[in-house]
């Protein structure tokens, strides 16, 4: 109120620069400009630090705070500390890929079957089963990490801490994401096609194999890509279930490296991780987009990914 009163008492005759700015911002029912400005500030705040971090991975010198020119020193050039020549960084890269590859190949079929089962199964037991599927998505990761650590140390002692434990852990929290992706497609497809096939004499197995799975294929490919992306992105589970230096992943290596001896090689390996994530997610988006085009849906897959209810 007081602000409005103050501007009113100013001379009206000259539409000053300040007033222009004010009307530009306060245009009542048009596009609220300050919101757009805020949006762009947010995007810069959110993304610029990462872009700068990528840039320092290409720095031609040891500094992570002053730009000394472009080079691939920290990727391949530096004889001891670059991603390719530091055994701990190279092993972290391969460990990350190993975990993600196996996780995606096991979690996807289990998740697809679970999604089909949960959407079609009605009656007793289906509600607790749905709840069980949701829990890994909302349990704080540290709790799941501690729980899996203790179960492998004290109960399933046949599984040593290390690669196998990490893979089992990754699969556990990835399954639920696969279920979410496939389930949303299943609900969109409905049961009509399958029932039509059944009415025309197909067996349940044939209806599944010839009708449902082909219709789900793009969602299954997308699930593979997203499972891969989720696995390479994980830090907490890999951290609690690691067993020795050979089982460090890129995220756990970033963590220990940042605390002990940071060098631009960390920026370099983080950039490699970033590129892998982006490739996987782009692939997932393309698969989902193809599905949408086939169904003649409007908008883009990006919006669908954004609306994916957890």
């Amino acid at each position, binding site marked *: 109120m007081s602000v409005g009163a103050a501007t009113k008492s100013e001379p009206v005759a000259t539409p000053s620069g300040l007033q222009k700015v004010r009307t530009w911002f306060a245009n009542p029912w048009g596009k609220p400009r300050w919101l757009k400005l805020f949006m762009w500030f947010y995007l810069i705040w959110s993304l610029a630090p990462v872009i700068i971090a990528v840039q320092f991975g290409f720095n031609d010198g040891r500094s992570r705070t002053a730009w000394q020119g472009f080079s691939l020193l920290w990727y391949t050039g530096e004889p001891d500390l670059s991603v390719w020549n530091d055994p701990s960084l190279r092993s972290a890269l391969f460990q990350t890929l190993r975990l993600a590859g196996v996780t995606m190949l096991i979690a996807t079929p*289990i998740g697809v079957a679970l999604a089909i089962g949960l959407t*079609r199964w009605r009656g007793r037991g289906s509600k607790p089963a749905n709840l069980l599927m949701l829990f890994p998505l909302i349990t704080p990761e540290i709790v799941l990490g501690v729980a899996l650590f203790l179960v492998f140390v004290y109960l399933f002692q046949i599984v040593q801490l290390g690669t196998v434990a990490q893979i089992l852990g990754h699969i556990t929290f990835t399954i639920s994401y696969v279920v979410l992706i496939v389930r949303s497609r299943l609900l969109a497809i409905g049961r009509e096609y399958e029932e039509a096939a059944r009415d025309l004499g197909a067996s349940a197995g044939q209806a599944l194999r010839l009708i449902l799975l082909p219709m789900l294929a793009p969602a299954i490919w997308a699930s593979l890509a997203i499972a891969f992306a989720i696995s390479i992105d994980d830090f907490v589970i890999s951290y609690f279930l690691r067993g020795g230096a050979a089982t460090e992943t890129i995220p756990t290596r970033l*963590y220990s490296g940042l605390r002990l001896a940071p060098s631009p090689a960390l920026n370099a390996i983080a950039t490699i991780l970033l590129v892998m994530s982006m490739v996987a997610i782009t692939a997932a988006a393309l698969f989902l987009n193809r599905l949408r085009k086939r169904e003649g849906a409007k908008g883009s897959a990006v919006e669908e990914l954004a609306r994916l209810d957890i």
Partner: protein
Amino acid sequence: MSGSSEGHDRRNWVWRVFALPGLIWLILLFIVPFYAILSVAMGRLDPIFNTGEPVWNPIQWDPSIFGEVLGEIFGGQLGVIFLRTITYVAIASLLALLIGYPVAYFISRHAGRRKWIYLLLVLAPFWINYLMRMLAWVNLLEADGYVNDALMFLGILDAPRDWLGGNSETVVLGLAYGYVPFLILPLFAALDRIDPSAIQAARDLGASPFRAFLHVTLPLSRQGILAGMVIVMLPMFGDYYTNNLLARSPRTRMIGNEIDLFINSTGGGARGAALTVILMAFVALLMIYYLVSVTRASKETTA
């Protein structure tokens, strides 16, 4: 039609078989591990090695460790850490809401045909590793980093400030930065569902844009606000890496750090497990609230 209901029953059996591998997996590697936490927390101490031993039979569980740990929380060192955690999470999640709401609001109502580009940019941090995002800030906040350079250039600081030496502000800002994207998505989903004609109606009836926002948009997005806050508070309560990277100091230690320290030390297993159970009980209310609101929302959309 009678045949279809019979077929339905038969298929129902088939669908359970489909769900079986996944459910068995989740029981063995999600439910059983939780049981293991309880068994370790309420296990016994090996008298020779002074290490914790799990007790698998619930009848023999000894809950005294909870008394000990709770005693330290109410009137001990742990209490300070608990209060600190709650304070950090409260401020950081409110900050995230203040930043995230305008962003989500803009995308849902004013982005127009470029909506998907904005969404893409807002979604990007999801797939940029959290530790890389923290690494980015460590680079920026170093004594000779860009943040100090910029603040000194602007004359706000006279000498470089030690941002990474155990500052609460740095940790809270780091948490807010790290988790904002997770809050924007549910908020966007809630705001996007609001029927624009409801707002138009309020405007036609003479409400100012601000009043229309206050009395129509804001109440209708309440569900999204609460869901988003819960979504960011859950991981924040268990966070131990943000402040280990941005503060490197016991002065900013949170519950997650205590759990991490106990679990990774010999003989600390039982205490670590007990703390995890307490943390879990603490956030269980948030989780239950979230599950209830999600199932309610999905019922509304299927109805």
